[in-house]
Each structure stands twice: as C-alpha cells, then as structure tokens.
C-alpha cells in the first residue's frame, strides 16, 4: 500500500476516533446502557451510520468505484465469535475501536480492555491452525451478500434498508424507562 493511501488512513482514523470520542460512543456508561436497552443514543448512531454507509458504499459499488471486502460467511465461527464478542463487550463496556479511543481519552479501565484484547486476539492467532478446520472451514458459504441470496439488486436492497434504518433511528426514543444513569460527577467516581 502506497504512503499516500496510508496517510489518508491515518487522517480517516483520526476523524473516526474524534467522532467516537465527541459522540460519547467511547463512553462505558453509554455503551452499557445501550446494551441494557435504556439509553438508545448509541444504537441510533449505529443505525444512522449504517443507513448512510450502506447507501454510500452501494452507490460507489454501482459506479464501479468501491474497494469492497466481503467477510466470508462461515456461519458456525461467525455466530460463536459473535456470541463471545457480545459477552466480552458487556463485561468490558468498550468495543475494540472504542477501547483505543477511550484509552486516548485517559479512561484507565479502557487501557486494560486494550491489553486483554491484545492477548485475546494474539491467542486466537496462535490457535488459528488448530481452530480453522473445526470452526472456520465447516459451514463456510464464502463471500455471500444478502442481495444475491434474496435475488434482488444491491441498489434496491440498499435503498430499502437505508430508509428503514433511518426511520427506525428517528422513531426510537433517546431513553427508555426511568433515568437509570444517575449523573454522578467524575470526581465522585475518581475518589476510589
């Protein structure tokens, strides 16, 4: 990859990190309350990002200008990995990207998520030769895209999906039920 593209990557990553920081997406409270289905703002960020992203990526693809990277559908490994990810996500309260951003924001627990994550990803890499025939090779349907599966054009699906996601983001309330996140001052939680 040439140096110019790499520098664009750095710039893009910086904008991504800054957005995650400013939007509260790198906040433990916002992430956990999203998983508790109490504070839906993070969900609304994701739905909006997906609506814009799906439309943007599909339009690029239609114009033949997209660098797609479709993840193969090895359903057993993807489902099992997703299940483990969800458990770790709720325990950590940050995702892989946001633990990097939160570490940069000087949230100390996020640094431990990052360290644990480094060890977890490395462990998977070391076990990969053993796990591949068991969890990745079986039920591997390859780079399947939903429009092919459903027999509709990607553009049609993108339009319908984007409109639905956007409508959902707009209709969902910011918060559900009582205000559970007592807004405690950071000083109080720093007193430990």
């Amino acid at each position, binding site marked *: 990859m040439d140096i110019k593209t790499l520098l664009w990557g750095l710039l893009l990553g910086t904008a991504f990190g800054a957005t995650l920081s400013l939007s509260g997406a790198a906040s433990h409270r916002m992430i956990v309350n999203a998983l508790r289905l109490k504070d839906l703002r993070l969900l609304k960020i994701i739905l909006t990002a997906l609506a814009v992203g799906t439309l943007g990526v599909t339009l690029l693809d239609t114009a033949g200008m997209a660098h797609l990277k*479709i993840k193969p559908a090895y359903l057993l490994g993807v489902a099992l990995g997703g299940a483990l990810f969800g458990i770790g996500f709720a325990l950590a309260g940050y995702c892989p990207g946001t633990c990097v951003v939160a570490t940069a924001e000087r949230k100390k627990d996020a640094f431990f998520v990052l360290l644990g994550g480094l060890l977890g990803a490395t462990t998977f*890499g070391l076990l990969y030769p053993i796990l591949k025939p068991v969890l990745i090779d079986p039920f591997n349907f390859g780079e399947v895209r939903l429009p092919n599966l459903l027999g509709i054009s990607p553009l049609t699906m993108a339009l319908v999906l984007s409109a639905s996601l956007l409508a959902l983001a707009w209709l969902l309330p910011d918060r559900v039920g009582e205000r559970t996140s007592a807004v405690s001052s950071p000083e109080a939680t720093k007193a430990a």
Partner: protein
Amino acid sequence: MTLTWWKTRDPEEPLIPWWVAGVVIGLLLTFAVAIAAPIGMSSEFAYTGGRIVSLLVPQEANNPYWQGKLGIGWETMLVLGAFLGGALAAWLVRKPSLDIPSLWAERFGTDRRKRYLIAFFGGFVMLFGARLAGGCTSGHMISGVSQLALSSFVFAVTIFLTGVLTAKALYDRRRA
C-alpha cells in the same frame, strides 16, 4: 437536543448529537471504501500481537494467520489515527480523565483492581471472539452490514443477543 460544547465536565456524556455522529461515520466509511478498504479495528490487535510473538519466537512469523501481514498496513494507520483522534478530541474539549466508569462504580463499587481485572477479561473474550468471527463493531457491523454481507448480519444479531443478556445479568439483576 442541546449542544453542550466546552461545558460538560462529565467524560461519559456526548458533546455532539447522535445523528451528526452517525452521518459522519457513514461518510467516513464511504470515503474509506472509495480510496482503499473498509474500516476495521480488531485485526490490528492480532497483528500487533503477531509482531511481538514473532520477535520472541521467530518461527511464529510463519503462522498463516498473520504471515505477510506484520508490516504497517491500512488497519495499522486506522488504529493509530483512532488513538490520535480520541486524544485530540479529549484535549480540545478538556475532557476529564476517568479511573472507574460511573455505572460500574454505582453497581460494583470503587475497587480499582476488580474493575481493571474484569476489563482485562472482557477485552480478552471480546477480541478472541472478534478474531474468530472475522471482525468487530467497526469491521463487521458498520463496514460489513453496509456491504450487505450475510456474515455481518449474523454477527450483528449474535452480539446483540449475548451483549444484551450479559449486560442485563450484570446490571439489572436484583442483588440477593
């Protein structure tokens, strides 16, 4: 919806509305796909680990999982950028540092070792799962669903299920 720029002292509250963040992330992804590749964060964790392991055990550089991928690549730059962006934003808005998240402190107390241990364990399970599934919230969910990939829809559904169940079990179960 109020903008609380420059004013908030709570490091866990947003400073920009959700729809601004959503639109920006969607546009960044579109831009990324136009110039090089989708956005991903979790593979770099494995490659960084692979670099360290290969230094200690040279034959591990031949592990097919990271062989030929240990140089500086697209994901390396994205992760470095994400760190820079988080630091820059936090510095610009004077975001206070945080030892223990408020919600955790309310529920499990202010013992730092306890929080850091669970954070480490959670990170381990999460990234192991991410590498098994082939991506994370950015690579699979945001980038993958945007490409209408079947595997990413499966991933999104399973993390939602186990994530919600685990969070409810941790934070919404009555103490006996």
